[in-house]
């Protein structure tokens, strides 16, 4: 009788698993289709405009070659410089900020943390007009959009302290104290003891700091103000999608999309293990 019930449970389990898997497969197909579609279009050479079929009739690398003869090169470089500089600077500032808030006790520490939390709740778009004004006065718009965008991204980076502070809080303070007695300065404590222990969160910070500017569109477009030399890839490539351009550039646009996705995908695949650990570790323990 027990065995019977056991068998019953087993088949019920199997049935529910089957349903779950079918559902998951459908969702993944829906989710993956656009990517597959874009990759396929990027290799199509017979037409440059949208067609009624998915599989190209003629395959080739023409679209990719055309990318490198267009302004895309400049946009890509712009984006890469912005993302890389932001990633480095934001990571340094954010980790230092988090360590400070986690370990030091100073006047107004609590109010400062709450203030930043509340500030962070306002949509960034609200600041666009005044930020543009400031950047314009500094001469950091249009052709100089790249340093302008780096400045804007880095300036507010300290406010994203929560996740890494939460992670740092879980590392016992006595490790800092032991290291300080051992002769380490505060900075040595951070990079010799705390950061190696917080590797997942460091990688999480680098990844998010890199991906933010990499996919930025609204602000980047606003700061570049129609000057192609100041575009990043998102803004530049969007200019190919206007009514009078799309028929000329559609497949090149798809090739650009693939190239844009590549570094982020590679970065993500390499660091995926730490990324998951970083997000969940910080959240649960923090």
């Amino acid at each position, binding site marked *: 009788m027990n065995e019977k019930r056991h068998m019953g449970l087993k088949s019920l389990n199997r049935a529910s698993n089957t349903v779950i898997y079918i559902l998951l497969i459908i969702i993944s197909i829906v989710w993956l289709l656009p990517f597959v579609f874009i990759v396929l279009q990027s290799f199509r050479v017979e037409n440059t405009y949208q067609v009624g079929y998915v599989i190209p009739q003629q395959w080739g690398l023409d679209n990719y070659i055309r990318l490198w003869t267009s302004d895309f090169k400049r946009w890509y470089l712009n984006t890469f410089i912005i993302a890389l500089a932001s990633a480095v600077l934001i990571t340094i500032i954010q980790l230092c900020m988090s360590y400070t808030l986690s370990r030091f*006790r100073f006047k107004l520490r609590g109010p400062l943390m709450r203030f930043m939390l509340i500030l962070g709740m306002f949509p960034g778009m609200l600041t666009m007009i005044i930020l543009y004004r400031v950047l314009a006065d500094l001469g950091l718009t249009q052709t100089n959009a790249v340093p302008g965008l780096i400045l804007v991204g880095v300036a507010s980076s300290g406010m994203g302290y929560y996740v890494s502070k939460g992670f740092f809080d879980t590392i*016992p303070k006595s490790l800092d*104290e032991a*290291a*300080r*007695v*051992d*002769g380490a300065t505060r900075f040595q404590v951070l990079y010799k003891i705390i950061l190696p222990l917080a590797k997942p969160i460091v990688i999480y910070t680098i990844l998010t700091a890199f991906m933010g500017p990499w996919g930025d569109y609204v602000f980047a477009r606003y700061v570049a103000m129609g000057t192609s030399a100041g575009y990043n890839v998102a803004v530049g490539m969007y200019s190919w999608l206007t009514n009078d351009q799309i028929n000329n550039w559609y497949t090149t646009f798809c090739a650009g999309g693939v190239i844009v996705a590549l570094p982020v995908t590679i970065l993500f695949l390499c660091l995926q293990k730490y990324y998951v650990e970083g997000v969940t570790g910080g959240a649960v323990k923090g």
Partner: protein
Amino acid sequence: MASVKLTGVKKIYDNKVVAVHDFDLDIKDKEFVVFVGPSGCGKSTTLRMIAGLEDISEGTVEIDGEVVNDLQPKDRGIAMVFQNYALYPHMTVYDNIAFSLRLSKVPEDVVFEKVNKAAKILGITEYLTRKPRALSGGQRQRVAIGRAMVRDSKVFLMDEPLSNLDAKLRNQMRAEIILLRKQLDTTFIYVTHDQTEAMTLGDRIVIMKDGYIMQVGTPTEVFEMPKNLFVAGFIGAPQMNFINTKLINEGGKYFVEPFGVRLPVDGEKGEALAKRKVQTRDIVLGVRPEHIRLAKPGAGAISCTLIVNEMMGSEFHLHVETKDGTRLIVRVPTVDLNKAEREELVSGHEMAVTFEGKVMHFFDPESQTNLLV
């Protein structure tokens, strides 16, 4: 090797809580001083102020004659062992011990020599390539001690280093700390809440309560001449029995009358009372459990009923209740009793106890201080 001097040291936290009040202490070169007291008495805070991990609100700390109040921990010439070991989890045992040497740019061959020497002394050579998580509690504590050893510091600070270990390991490590102290021959300041550790390790013991020093003295001094009721109760296990009674002065001869039984205070204690011209008065009488003897019922014996008998192996801890309901603890060595006497010791057994004048302690019920200190 250095002396440590604390003058009027005070710790006031931001929320105005005073953790340590006017702490004055002179620690001599190569002395082993133990801070002991219940949790929250300020002993760890005081140690951390000496280490530089906690700001000093008032007063000065001097190490080797130099005021170190504003010096960073690394510049104070101290080494410290933490309660939770505080080993760096991402480094091997070797790297943990070598950390401070590398920070001070010691050549790698000297580092190698020093780490191996420390490891040999502590018996952890075979674990040098392991990470701390692959070690047992006792081994971790050895690594923590090793890390402190290689610094060749002037003062060795230990913050409850044994309290995370199990009882057996604690006894073993305690003996090893005594040996270590002989080898290092430096000044030690050791914090613990365990009076056994304090008694066995310390040249001098500082007993603290609520941020105040209750008594400073050698283990013998604090055991035989506790300054007040707190020290008397804190040092010694099981703790001293306290009896509210009267001290009677009859023409220079002294008596106490616990539970209506008149006992003479003769010998040294009687002379000391006479010298101080103590008059008849109320007192709290203190007697240690090991100083109470079993007696035959009759004159000079306090009759009582046995409540609980704890057999400790080498001795019995007898919890007895007197006629007025006061509980006393009596410690009787097992070898002092024959088989028949042992078998009598069951709950409800009517018995009698007594003690002599030389083992009595006299405290003022108001100020709680010892009348003879």
